[in-house]
């Protein structure tokens, strides 16, 4: 894309002004994280500094590794019983707050998602160790719930006092051989954001869950969807489309999912990756160990959804599948277009800013574009350089001390379970023909020149962005929601969707168009100023005694 948007004042001006408030050290660092997009030859983009520490005291959008591990990756699955080992808070705050929907197969099937479980560590356990209590908690959980699997999540103090959640998990597994029990060292201080927790979750799910069960869902075209968490029912919509096209989703990591699906995911023939940031590790490792090819998809926006399902069909090279997919897409796009064209007329030319997640700030640009809304500034909360610049920069990313602490697994092909899904050399042949695998081009090559790309955007910068560029809508998270709306500017949450959705797939696109239309043309913000604010001068109409 070679489109250019001229910001006024320019992005450079903004950046240079905004960093003046910082200390020299912080100013230098933030300048590397505030980038004016410029697409060069071969889609090269400027380098951005990402996945680096947030300065203390800065009002940040970021959370912690526990949130990334328990909250994001493992939270959405319904039948892995999840025990948070630590004081009560972490478990409390991750209790149903991410809107991961789930639909158990039967009225009796296990669903632990409405349950928050914690060892609620007390002072004496902090002093003398909490492993005994954790073991007792597992005993109680097994006795009450009889789960297939238990995940244990370490919180900050647990790491510091030296409780070994993995040792307890092993001991518990010996005691309960029918239950798969595994621990996550996802203490909140690991890494610099939620991102560390994603990686920790990926590693453990890969080593302790995937490959444990040998079964495969019926179907000719069986795939896993990675990095889709069924917020607001997104995974339900993706399942509907997949079914309509004739595909079989073996497992979704991890929206609307079950343990058995994870445990047998090695038997699927393709992995598609939705949220690159949170799950690319698993895709890569499954490719190496089981030979499952993967590529990036995007189910946010009608065009991206159509493109992604076409690519999936083309991957399987089956004419019937391709035909069925095309027919399904055509039918859906017809419905989408009716709404889109109507909404477009009311929304075109509006300006948006997106600061969210590790993929969403990119994905949602597509769907906004479909209704004529331009993204003039965007950035991720916890992504890495590859999410901005594309995976081509992976070899050049310098691993700093914070990331080095997160284990990087060495993976080799499995002796029995590795098998090629396509003939030798086929992937390379396709790649040469422009059909990408193991790909992600990142956000920046798809953003117009001159737009602002800001990593780990903070409150100070968000306020300035609004002052400088007066966006018509801002998309971010709950902590930013009311900061923006107090100013009379509509704000759309892209973590929780403001308790709406789905926003994925075709129906999701329709929902999102309507929602943005509602927000941009909403009555309430007309009332931001009272009539007397507009003309405060006093002239008495009726005055007694004159």
């Amino acid at each position, binding site marked *: 894309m070679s489109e250019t948007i001229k910001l006024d004042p320019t992005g450079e001006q903004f950046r240079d002004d905004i960093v003046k408030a910082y200390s020299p050290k912080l100013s230098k660092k933030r300048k590397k994280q505030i980038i004016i997009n410029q697409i060069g030859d071969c889609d090269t983009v400027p380098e951005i500094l990402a996945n680096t520490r947030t300065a203390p005291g800065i009002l940040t959008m970021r959370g912690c590794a526990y949130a990334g591990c328990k909250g994001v990756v493992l939270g959405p699955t319904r039948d892995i019983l999840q025990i948070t080992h630590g004081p009560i808070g972490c478990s*409390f705050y991750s209790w149903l707050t991410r809107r991961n929907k789930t639909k158990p197969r039967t009225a009796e099937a296990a669903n632990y998602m409405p349950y928050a479980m914690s060892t609620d560590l007390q002072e004496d356990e902090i002093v003398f160790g909490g492993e005994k209590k954790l073991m007792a*908690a597992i005993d109680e959980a097994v006795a009450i719930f009889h789960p297939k699997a238990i995940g244990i999540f370490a919180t900050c103090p647990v790491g*510091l006092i030296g409780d070994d959640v993995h040792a307890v998990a092993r001991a518990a597994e010996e005691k309960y051989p029918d239950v798969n029990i595994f621990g996550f060292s996802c203490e909140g*201080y690991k890494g610099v954001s939620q991102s560390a927790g994603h990686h920790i979750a990926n590693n453990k799910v890969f080593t302790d869950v995937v490959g444990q069960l040998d079964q495969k869902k019926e179907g000719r075209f069986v795939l896993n969807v990675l990095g889709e968490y069924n917020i607001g029912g997104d995974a339900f919509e993706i399942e509907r489309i997949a079914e309509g096209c004739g595909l079989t989703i073996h497992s979704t990591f991890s929206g609307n999912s079950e343990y058995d699906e994870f445990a047998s995911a090695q038997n699927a023939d393709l992995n598609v990756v939705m949220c690159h940031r949170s799950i690319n590790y698993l895709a890569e490792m499954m490719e190496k160990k089981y030979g499952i090819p993967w590529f990036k998809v995007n189910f946010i926006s009608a065009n991206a959804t159509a493109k992604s399902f076409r690519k999936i069909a083309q991957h399987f090279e089956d004419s019937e599948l391709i035909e069925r997919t095309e027919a399904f897409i055509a039918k859906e796009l017809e419905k989408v277009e009716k709404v889109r064209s109507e909404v477009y007329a009311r929304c075109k030319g509006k300006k948006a800013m997106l600061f969210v997640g590790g993929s969403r700030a990119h994905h949602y640009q597509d769907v906004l574009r479909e209704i004529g809304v331009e993204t003039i500034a965007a950035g991720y909360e916890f992504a890495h350089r590859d999410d901005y610049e594309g995976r081509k920069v992976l070899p050049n990313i310098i691993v700093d001390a914070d990331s080095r602490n997160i284990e990087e697994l060495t993976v080799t092909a499995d002796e029995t379970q590795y098998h090629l899904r396509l003939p030798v050399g086929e992937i390379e042949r396709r790649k040469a023909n422009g059909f990408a695998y193991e790909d992600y081009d990142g956000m920046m090559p798809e953003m117009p020149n001159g737009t602002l790309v800001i990593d780990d955007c903070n409150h100070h910068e968000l306020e300035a962005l609004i002052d400088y560029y007066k966006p018509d809508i801002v998309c971010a998270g709950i902590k930013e929601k009311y900061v923006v709306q107090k100013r009379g500017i509509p704000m759309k949450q892209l973590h929780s969707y403001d308790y709406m959705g789905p926003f994925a797939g075709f129906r999701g696109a329709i929902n999102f168009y309507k929602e943005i239309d509602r927000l941009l043309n909403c009555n309430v913000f007309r009332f931001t100023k009272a009539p007397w604010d507009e003309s405060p001068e006093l002239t008495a109409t009726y005055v007694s005694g004159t």
Partner: protein
Amino acid sequence: MLLRHTPSTTPERHALTINPAKTCQPVGAMYAALGIHNCMPHSHGSQGCCAYHRSALTRHYNDPIMSGTSSFSEGASVFGGQANLLEAFTNIFTLYSPDIVAVNTTCLSEVIGDDLTQIINKAYEEKKIPAGKIVIHANTPSFTGSHITGYANMAAAMVKYLAKKTADGGRQTDTINLIPSFIEPSDMAEIKHIAEEMEISYIMFPDTCGVVNSPLDGRFHLYPRGGCPKEKIEASGSSAATIAIGVLGAQPAAKLLDTKCKVPFETVEVPIGISATDRFIDTLRKIAGASVPSSIRIERGQLVDAISDMCQYTYGKKVSLVGDPDILVPLVEFLNDLGMKVQHVLTGTSTNKYKFEERIKNICGENVKILAGLGKDMYLFHQLLQADKPDLFFGNTYCKYIARDMDIPLLRIGFPIYDRLGHSYQPIAGYRGGMNLLIRILNTLMDRIDRDANEEEFELIM
């Protein structure tokens, strides 16, 4: 069923908490800190704590909740958080210029043993805290107490750092300090309304009124209009007396003010319902030497009138409650006054410092089942309800799963409420709050009567 794994009985639990009926200290401390005008709360720990607490409070109030964090990395966790906190002070005062920063610790900084007093002193020495600016702190380890303890600790920290003793040691003003427990801004406003009607000069802190329920006016106010100004908290050391409104949430601050500045205090229960509001006003009247104006008498009389009109619908109705002790006791008392039969009361907060069980039994007899403290959770509460189904129950948003599964009407009171509006604006304290509460109870019960009545029993006039 949403809670399909909650049978009426299960093996006893000692180690596993399921669906907690409390949360951790720092969120309470953050809420209290918001009750100081021009104050930036700051969470000394990992980013996640701050993100979670801000999110929880933001969802509860649908208002911006701002707080800094020390953003601990693994290095800070090993070597101590001093460098992070010092850097945080520089950034906070440069970028956000608050008058006060109120630091709460977390389990992380507590376990590594960061000495906040020492770090804050060092920050003053190194001029990381600009002249005229103040930093206060409360130790709020998540492995003791609950969100109520955290609130109480931060309220006490306000006294510890800010309240000043008058020079001659004597009382200088006829002002009364009002220290509320962890209650909603609407309830704080109602308590202030009562004091104002009685023409009593008062200082209320923490006071989150106008901070977490601020108007939309086209601007973002990092420090909204509300909150108790620092000068007033300082002056609280010269007040005639203090009324601690709530045993667990407010008494520690009042006690400390007595010790530090010799301001005598009395503790009352949060004025919810007629009896507790009567006692609050009576205490206020006697301490301040004020008379009760007709406006308050009218509010009281209207509430008594409404109850007398409608108490046939509340009489004998079975109720269960889960929540926080300072709210639960007067709420139980009000329900009892309405003729309702309170059968279960549960809190995850430890009530060691409060004769909680004794108080509730005093109010409604021996038959009520009371569970309080460590290990008492909503899983247990749900099981109690299954054994003896009430007509109505009280609790926070998480209770909606129980309400739906069991088809029992739920009145949302407590923290957090993520799914309904009202608590920011409509009080349950005072006589007017009692009226709101009565109306909510009646509407809920009467909607059920209308829904469930046979056609031949359906009533037009009720």
